């Protein structure tokens, strides 16, 4: 072994993020002290980010199968069958830690990484989404982080050429020290032309493709597996730098090469770079991998094996090629001006062997690198249950109209136009429903089929009751797809939590997983891919539990998709689902009353399904002219959004069974507002009754104001000003 490498000690192992028992496990596994390079490999493979050592045990409880699931979790992305021989490939992934350290590049490379996961499988990306959580607006870093993250997401997607069609952004104190940047990519492939990471055949060439390897992002995955202390600035060198232009070339070159039939297996180099991609390809195929790093394309001379193996330089791929087709494959990559180097071969030894400068730098059992990664059943404590809080328990501090205007102008409910106008959401010419509604709707090729896409989570519910919050995140994604007229098919989850070594945080994780699992089972909405991001903590303060759910639904004919905009004057307004005036953890309670109390609204999954199926049927029949789910801010906010989107007012009658603020701002679940021609109302009400669905006609559309019961009308111009002002004023 090279004299220039440090000798490995328990202290050095600890500095690599390996706990004493984990280091002992390495010693037991290989029967000797690892080399410095091998220590690097273990730290890359066994950190939380790559090994899922705290979460694996619990993730197993999630439902992942359905007749339409082609590929569940465990590959680069999940795949579902969307009919006609088409498959939808999608996944959501976090880039939280890097985005806090360096927001532009952190967010940009988050988008780049998730796009690679999708096109690695042979799919052409057709849409991106994101879910962002920032600290409170008056925190010193928030503006800088919003500006950088949004510009970074935009720069990558815009240049790559994929529309960014939907997202969710909000703000809260809990994210002051750890923002969340969750990026989702969606691609379309032919169902019989999908590529996997599993290597096959012995002696087949392993090819390095894409950008050269540099010294950026070394130990990025390890950094992402630790909490921040006061030193996050010092971690900037662990953040990678993105090059969307090269990624675009890589996409075109990979898809072109795949069409030649030369590709046996393919894996992108993401977290833990070359190490992770090579080990995964070998381990999945029950093969050994031998790499000779002398051939690896490097940006600068003098890079050690350790650095090359741990670099997280972007826009790189590893492929196993059909022997004999190397020249044809190389020609494709040369055409696109990308590096192409054979750097190794598959073997029958089941070992991961790395050579560099005539020495063997690593020789490790390949299966054990993955399979023998530590698995922890961490102690977990359930969160205490909070009391129900209904409208009768809460006094309205201001008139309802004033509350509505205030809510529409809050950071969490205001228009996010300032953000999504920085994303090219129109490229490819298939965006039917742009950002700003419930779910985005994109057409597939020339149609008429389309996809509905959404990303959701309500972290204040998850913090108050992880189980109900987990259920609600799934239900809301499912509901948003339904409100667009789509049949929800599957979801991807991005589980963002604090330090799992703390029983309270682990309890939140377990609770959310159980909620997500129950909701996915009840709604036939399996989780097909996902990502876990733990250690979102700064100086001991964890983020609120934030299990983001990215949902995908299919719509047979996009011309029948529903949108939230009121289309016509004189339509009837109908509320689907019961109103109980649930104010616990509502935005009304928090932002109007200044209280963060009570249990979140419970999600009745049977009701959710019944109401959603009913709304979807109405949309498919063409009976309704607009549809919107009722979520944050309740009925009044939902109706205001519909009025603003359509530039048509509405008036609403208030029932006397509930205090008006409970009816207007309660966040009871499983609810939708639809509008329909007055002549259709009787039939809708009859159909609702037959289906066992609570449905009530509440008012009519028309005019240039929103009138809530006997309250003063609020002009749409006032509402629009409240809705559109906050974010641009904050940012500009």
């Amino acid at each position, binding site marked *: 072994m090279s004299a220039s490498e440090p000798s490995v000690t328990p202290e050095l192992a600890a500095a690599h993020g390996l706990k004493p028992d984990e280091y002992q496990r390495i010693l037991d596994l290989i029967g000797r002290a690892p080399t410095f390079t091998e220590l690097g490999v273990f730290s890359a493979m066994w950190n939380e980010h790559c090994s899922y050592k705290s979460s694996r045990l619990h993730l197993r409880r999630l439902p992942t199968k359905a007749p339409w699931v082609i590929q569940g979790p465990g590959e680069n992305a999940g795949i579902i069958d969307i009919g006609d021989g088409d498959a939808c490939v999608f996944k959501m992934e976090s880039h939280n830690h890097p985005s806090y350290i360096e927001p532009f590049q952190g967010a940009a490379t988050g988008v780049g990484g998730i796009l690679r996961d999708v096109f690695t499988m042979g799919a052409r990306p057709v849409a991106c989404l994101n879910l962002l959580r920032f600290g409170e607006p008056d925190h010193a870093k928030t503006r800088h982080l919003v500006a950088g993250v949004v510009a970074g997401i935009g720069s990558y997607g815009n240049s790559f050429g994929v529309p960014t069609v939907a997202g969710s952004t909000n703000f809260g104190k809990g994210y002051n020290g750890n923002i969340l940047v969750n990026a989702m990519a969606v691609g379309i492939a032919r169902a019989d032309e999908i590529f996997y990471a599993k290597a096959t055949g012995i002696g087949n060439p392993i090819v390095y493709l894409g950008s050269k390897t540099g010294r950026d992002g070394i130990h990025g995955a390890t950094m992402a597996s630790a909490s921040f202390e006061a030193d996050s600035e010092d971690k900037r060198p662990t953040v990678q730098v993105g090059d969307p232009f090269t990624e*675009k070339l890589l996409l075109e070159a990979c898809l072109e090469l795949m069409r030649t039939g030369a590709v046996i297996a393919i894996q992108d180099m993401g977290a833990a770079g070359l190490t992770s991609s090579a080990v995964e390809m070998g381990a999945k195929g029950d093969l050994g991998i031998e790499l000779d790093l002398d051939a690896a394309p490097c940006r600068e001379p003098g890079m050690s094996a350790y650095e090359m193996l741990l670099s997280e330089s972007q826009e790189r791929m590893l492929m196993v090629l059909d022997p004999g087709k190397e020249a044809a494959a190389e020609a494709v990559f040369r055409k696109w001006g990308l590096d192409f180097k054979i750097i190794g071969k598959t073997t029958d030894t089941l070992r991961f062997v790395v050579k560099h400068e005539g020495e063997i730098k690593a020789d490790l059992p390949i299966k054990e690198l993955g399979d023998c990664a530590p698995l922890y059943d961490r102690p977990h404590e359930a969160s205490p249950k909070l009391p129900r809080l209904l409208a009768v328990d809460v006094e309205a501090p201001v008139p309802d109209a004033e509350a509505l205007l205030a809510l529409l102008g809050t950071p969490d409910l205001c228009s996010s136009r300032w953000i999504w106008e920085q994303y090219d959401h129109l*490229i490819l010419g298939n965006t039917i429903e742009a950002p700003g509604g419930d779910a985005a709707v994109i057409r597939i090729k020339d149609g008429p089929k389309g996809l509905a896409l959404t990303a959701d989570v309500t972290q204040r519910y998850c913090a108050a009751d992880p189980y109900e919050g987990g259920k609600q995140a799934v239900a809301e994604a499912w509901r948003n797809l339904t409100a667009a007229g789509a049949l929800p098919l599957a979801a991807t989850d991005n589980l963002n939590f604090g330090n799992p070594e703390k029983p309270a945080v682990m309890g939140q994780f377990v609770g959310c997983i159980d909620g997500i699992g129950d909701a996915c089972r009840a709604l036939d909405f399996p989780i097909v891919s996902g990502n876990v991001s733990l250690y979102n903590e700064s100086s001991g303060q964890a983020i609120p539990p934030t299990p983001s759910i990215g949902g995908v639904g299919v719509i047979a004919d996009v011309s029948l998709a529903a949108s939230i905009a009121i289309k016509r004057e004189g339509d009837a307004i109908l509320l689907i689902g019961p109103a109980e005036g649930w104010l616990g953890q509502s935005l009304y309670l928090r932002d109007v009353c200044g209280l963060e109390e009570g249990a979140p609204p419970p999600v009745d999954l049977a009701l959710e399904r019944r109401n959603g199926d009913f709304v979807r049927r109405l949309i498919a029949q063409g009976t309704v002219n607009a549809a919107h789910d009722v979520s944050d801010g309740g009925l009044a906010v939902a109706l205001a959004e519909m009025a603003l989107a359509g530039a048509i007012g509405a008036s609403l009658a208030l029932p006397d069974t509930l205090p008006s603020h409970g009816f207007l701002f309660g966040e009871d679940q499983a609810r939708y507002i639809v509008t329909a021609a007055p002549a259709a109302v009787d039939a809708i009400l009859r159909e609702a009754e037959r289906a066992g669905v609570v449905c009530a006609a509440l008012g009519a559309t028309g005019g240039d104001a929103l009138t809530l019961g006997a309250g003063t009308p609020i002009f749409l111009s006032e509402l629009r000003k409240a809705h559109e002002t906050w974010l641009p004023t904050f940012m500009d």
Partner: protein
Amino acid sequence: MNAAIILFPGSNREGDAFRALAASGARPALVWHRETHLPPKTDLVVLPGGFSYGDYLRCGAIAARESIMDAVRAHAARGGLVLGICNGFQILVESGLLPGVLMRNAKLRFICRMQHLRVERNDTPFASAYARGQIIKVAIAHGEGNYIADSETIARIEGDGRVAFRYCGANGEADNPNGSINDIAGIYSKGFNVLGLMPHPENLVDALVGGTDGRGLFESLATFARPAA
């Protein structure tokens, strides 16, 4: 109408342009940037939107120096039609086929939204399907669309009536998204056979996807009779 869409490595709206041309009855073909000649009987060259070479420094500067651009310049010199959309407009000014430059948007941010334009004249091969003064809704999606030139050049462009489209609001009121001088969204060459514009008419050709106001440009081109050679 035979259209050659030049495909640079970082072009990304070539498919949108292809679809819009084909729907209007033109015959589009993709031409790889390493080619040195245009396909025979090319009537129209389209430089599509995108980030031709990543465009990390001056947008379009590298693309403008490719050998295929010599063929495009020769085509334009013969009076052939050239349409540069967004990055294509940037390439046209970088290659000297149109005057001026496109700077970063006034607010220094990328902006993607629906935008209204006023059609300044309709007696050109690109705008005959529109009425003069018509206000159309198209998409914009760019970070560097802030058109500027020295005052002499601007005076000449305006004097020659070479402004093709100006940014405006739905009712013709002022609404300039990027700070470009005189609200210029697109300009013609002296011979009116080269058009560069920042907006994306190719994304407004379908009632389901935002509207059809962009169709006019492609229909104008498709019906334009090739002048006798």
